[in-house]
């Protein structure tokens, strides 16, 4: 149920009401709206409409998790940037993908840290902008074509073995992840392992739908890793486009 409420997180405006309060809002709003409807049909149309509207507003507040009064007052009861609260236990969705690339851990680590290649290889990722050494701003096309933005912050880094990050405010999604570069046995390149946890817009049902319709983060990570491998091994990303114009259309 909580996931269902998180489901509106991808839409503006931001969530600034916590889960318990949102439920209270929605249920209270429903009761008030019902009362309003009754008054409306009891012929007190003006009062009925007002009460109904107030109830509807509370339902909306519960459903979206956004309170205009909190916003005006600069208050938030939601724990927005808290990745631990959102992702611990079975609350988040976990993705793990790996690929072996014929390059050294250092070459891969170095390239990964540059970020500029990411929009070229991850489907749906529109841009990554660096904001200082450890922060970056990510803009993607989310499920249903919504624009989704988030800030990623590097929280652990062991060159050339590991980079770990998590989202921080302001962000439309809550996520944490890491990439690990390990020398493959027998001098056969480097195993790149990406772990990603996220609190998906639309909850686990939304994640299932995204998976079915082919735009899930797991698939994006897998395709992204595949293209990262192509880029690092061959210097280019394989495409069946017949010419530059068609290649542009495909992007």
């Amino acid at each position, binding site marked *: 149920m909580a996931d269902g409420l998180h489901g509106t997180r991808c839409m503006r405006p931001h969530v600034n009401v916590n889960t318990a309060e949102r439920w209270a809002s929605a249920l209270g709003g429903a009761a008030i709206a019902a009362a309003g409807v009754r008054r409306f049909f009891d012929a007190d149309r003006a009062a009925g409409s007002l009460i109904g509207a107030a109830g509807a507003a509370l339902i909306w507040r519960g459903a979206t998790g956004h309170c205009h009064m909190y916003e005006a007052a600069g208050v938030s009861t939601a724990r927005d940037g808290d990745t631990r609260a959102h992702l611990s236990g079975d609350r988040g969705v976990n993705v793990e993908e790996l690929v*072996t690339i*014929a390059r050294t851990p250092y070459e891969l680590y170095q390239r990964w840290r540059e970020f500029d290649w990411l929009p070229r290889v991850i489907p749906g990722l529109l841009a990554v902008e660096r904001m200082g050494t450890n922060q970056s701003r990510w803009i993607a096309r989310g499920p249903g074509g919504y624009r989704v933005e988030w800030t990623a912050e590097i929280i652990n880094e062991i060159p050339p073995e590991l980079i770990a990050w998590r989202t921080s405010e302001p962000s439309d999604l809550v996520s944490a992840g890491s990439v690990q570069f390990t020398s493959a046995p027998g001098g*056969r390149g480097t195993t790149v392992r990406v772990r990603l946890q996220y609190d998906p817009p639309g909850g686990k049902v939304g994640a299932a739908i995204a998976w079915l319709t082919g735009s899930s983060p797991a698939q994006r990570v*897998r395709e992204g890793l595949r293209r990262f491998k192509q880029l690092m091994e061959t*210097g*280019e990303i*394989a495409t*069946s486009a017949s010419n530059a114009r068609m290649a542009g259309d495909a992007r």
Partner: protein
Amino acid sequence: MKAVVWHGTNDVRVERMPDPGIVNPRDAIIRITTTAICGSDLHLLDGFIPTMKSGDILGHEFMGEVVDVGKGNTSLQVGDRVVVPFTIACGRCFFCERQLWSACDNSNPNAWMAEKLYGFSGSGLFGYSHMMGGYAGGQAEYARVPFADVGPIKIPDSLTDEQALFLSDILPTGYMAAENCSITAGDTVAVWGCGPVGQMAIVSALLLGAERVIAIDDVPERLRMAMSHPGVTTIDLSTADVFDTLKTMTGGRGPDACIDAVGLEAHGTTADAYLDEAKTKVFLATDRSAALRQAIHACRKGGTVSIPGVYGGFIDKVPFGAAFAKGLTLKMGQTHVMRYLRPLLERIERGDLDPSFVITHRVALEDAPAAYRAFRDKRDGCIKVVMKPNGRVH
């Protein structure tokens, strides 16, 4: 440019398509002088291959002249005359470095489709469905060739297009099939299927030292073509019992190696789809896997069954007990074309073989739809069709 375009089952047309151009640094653009229709193209025509889309350009056996080169490609120059392998390989991955070119990790942009079916994806292929990369094929005036610093091989002017063209697919495919037989002096090799790949397997087995090749088919002109090579005897499977005849011909021992150049191309994206398809086409499916069953059944103890014929999904009732009991070696797979280009080109230059003997029909690109039908129906003695998209004959 003009191209042979797939629009659906039994719907192949010649149409104007956008000219290809350089997309990636290692690309080349080829102006195609000669191209061919492959037996496996017929299964596209028949609608057996999933993930084809209306508007796909067909063709994976082609050669021509380099007219443009990407700035990251230093091995080719404008004006080079090249044959293009049907498999696309990056030359840098784990598999390419081990000469397993058709297993290239980096050349299929739609690898995820093939992974669903096979666990892992092979290399990209020209003109052979989106599951195999969705690359435009070479039955056209021009083609974009990715990783063109790895695949295409330059052809000396002393050879004609028709002598060199089959380096693109059927010659290396037949040769690899024969090489997989580990032929030693005195060996008898039986070949099921005397289409173009079977013919190449026959001449390759002879080149590699087979004492005798027994060619098996039921199309008279194909058996006649096989018999034109010294050292080849034939079995017409429409009139003879193949197992008994082979046993008699080999003094009761069985052939040392058996080549299945027939294949079974009834693909499906999932087990269910495949089974459904097989069920609806029961006759075709049982007919075709019969070649493999027969090959396993007839092969001598400790022998090798080599399979250049393409299989796509699951096959019923493979006599695995016979394979186990006799300790057979099974070898198969998409051809690692690049491994064979230079040695086979040298053999053609030396005059050891001239693969152009399989050509029975030479037509204009415009006549491709009629040629596809004639090839499919085995009309007019059709064994191999070549086309000259730019009207120039070398």
